[in-house]
């Protein structure tokens, strides 16, 4: 197990290097620069700024310098927010995105898993059809349609929740549900499929034959195997939650990292873009590792394969 984790962490190094290199050269070859503002700034100030940030040096030297600093964990200063380090900006904005992500995922699992279990246990009854039709509708209703709809119903019409902003828990409700419901729909379908398969397994039948009560059969025996597809799905779900948060943050005007990233790309804030991309990549790699470990814990077969 230790060896597995270690080798995965080692594998992450070349991946992150590839990402850093790609992003570095992509941003630099794109037209425009961080100090090409609409309001022209005097030429000598621009030259001074560029030399201050080392932008006047040969590109390859800049690249090597960036990698060297990166190895020390230094993401560099932001070009657009004077006096701010990129790491400080991420540390400010990420907790907002994290709150949104955790809340959405909790909603997805808390709604999706029970709905899927009930649908599987009552297969081909209305308790199966109703949640499954709803979940199909949920999958086909993208967040950028659902979000405005929820604002329209719960904010404009009913006045229950604020339509935008991020000041207190009341602001959290609509964004988290918008993002969470889509994944709840997916999780419900996966749980149902997984449960249907495990409920037919011999060990579940044995447990039933031994007279375990139905509740115990589900929670102690079937659930563990039945949740495997959900766990597998968590990997792509995390990545999706991150890109989904870009949309949500833009709909509800939430000052999260996604919004910072898009703004930074527009402003050609090179270090901020690179830092955010690397941060997201590292996060995805870490989360995928956690998913694999969770999978190994749930599934003895996968454990042996590792």
């Amino acid at each position, binding site marked *: 197990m230790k060896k597995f984790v270690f080798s995965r962490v080692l594998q992450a190094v070349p991946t992150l290097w590839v990402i850093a290199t790609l992003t570095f050269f*992509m941003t630099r070859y794109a037209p425009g620069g961080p100090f090409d503002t609409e309001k022209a700034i005097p030429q000598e100030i621009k030259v001074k700024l560029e030399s201050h940030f080392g932008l006047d040096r040969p590109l390859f030297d800049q690249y090597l310098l960036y990698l060297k600093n990166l190895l020390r964990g230094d993401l560099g200063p932001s070009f657009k927010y004077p006096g701010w380090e990129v790491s400080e900006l991420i540390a400010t904005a990420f907790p907002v995105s994290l709150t949104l992500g955790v809340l959405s995922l909790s909603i997805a699992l808390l709604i999706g898993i029970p709905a899927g279990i009930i649908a599987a246990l009552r297969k081909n009854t209305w308790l199966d059809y109703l949640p499954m039709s709803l979940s199909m509708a949920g999958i086909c209703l*993208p967040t*950028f349609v659902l979000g405005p709809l929820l604002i329209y119903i719960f904010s404009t019409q009913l006045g229950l929740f604020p339509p935008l902003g991020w000041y207190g828990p009341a602001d959290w409700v609509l964004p988290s549900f918008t993002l969470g419901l889509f994944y709840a729909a997916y999780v419900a379908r996966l749980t149902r499929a997984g449960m249907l398969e495990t409920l037919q397994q011999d060990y579940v039948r044995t447990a039933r034959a031994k007279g375990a009560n139905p509740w115990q059969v589900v929670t102690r025996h079937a659930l563990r195997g039945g949740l495997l597809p959900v766990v597998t799905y968590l990997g792509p779900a995390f990545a999706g939650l*991150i890109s989904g948060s870009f*949309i949500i943050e*833009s709909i509800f005007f939430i000052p999260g990292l996604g919004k910072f990233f898009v703004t930074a790309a527009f402003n050609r804030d090179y270090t901020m873009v690179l830092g955010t991309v690397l941060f997201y990549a590292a996060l995805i790699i870490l989360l995928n590792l956690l998913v694999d470990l969770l999978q190994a814990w749930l599934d003895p077969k996968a454990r042996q394969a590792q």
Partner: protein
Amino acid sequence: MSVEKSSSLGRDAWLRLRANRMAMISLFILIGITTVSFIGPLISPYAYDQQNLDRVFEGPGKDHIFGTDNLGRDLFARTTYGGRISLAVGLLATLVSLVIGVSYGMFSGYTGGRVDAWMMRAVDVLYALPFTIFVILLMVMFGRNFLLLFLAIGAVEWLTMARITRAQTMNLKRSEFVEAARALGYSHGRILFRHILPNLIGPIIIYATLTVPAVMLLEAVLSFLGLGVQAPMSSWGSLIKEGAEKMDAAPWLLFFPGMFFCLSLFALNFLGDGLRDALDPKSSKD
């Protein structure tokens, strides 16, 4: 001989698909939406970018069946015109991903050995990349180039296709008819295109049907962030964005494009599921 066999397989699949009610409804919805999108701009008396500042924010009515937007543009013309673009992006970007993915997967699986191992390793590395982020970055940095949009989306979606194709090719490579073809001295190219590719068509069609909605979603996300097609052109994504902004004054601006878009996704997903059951009966659920 092989022609006869494949046609009867195809007919079997068609019969199975026809028996699937949801898949058939989806097929009709798709045909309907596609037709409306293509003839809509032709029969509409208004052009998609024709403004009429005397008739802004008009609800659905006799003159404008879907209503008008803040510049008095006809929403029916804009929605159907946007449908052309969304559907075209969906199909073309899927085609890009298909060509890349299938050739990559076939080559990797057929060659095998160390080449295969390295090629699949590369796919694994790419899988770990936060791709949506890259696409967003690409679109922001290099402007909203339509061609770039196809390429960027296609480049994201080919990975799974490559994996599926590779696995199938590896299986087919060991089959007797490929062995026979090799014994007859056929070239690798001929074996790949005449013997292996036709047997890949089932999985390719299934996955392509499921890729189209994914691609359309990505295009809509980009348009929603203001990175897709630019005004006065429209796509469903950009119309939904405009609609969401003006929802309080004119809910129909969100409703019609949203409905077209959601219905298409819904139908494509169901059709993909139906095709999977029809073309690959072994994998059918329950």
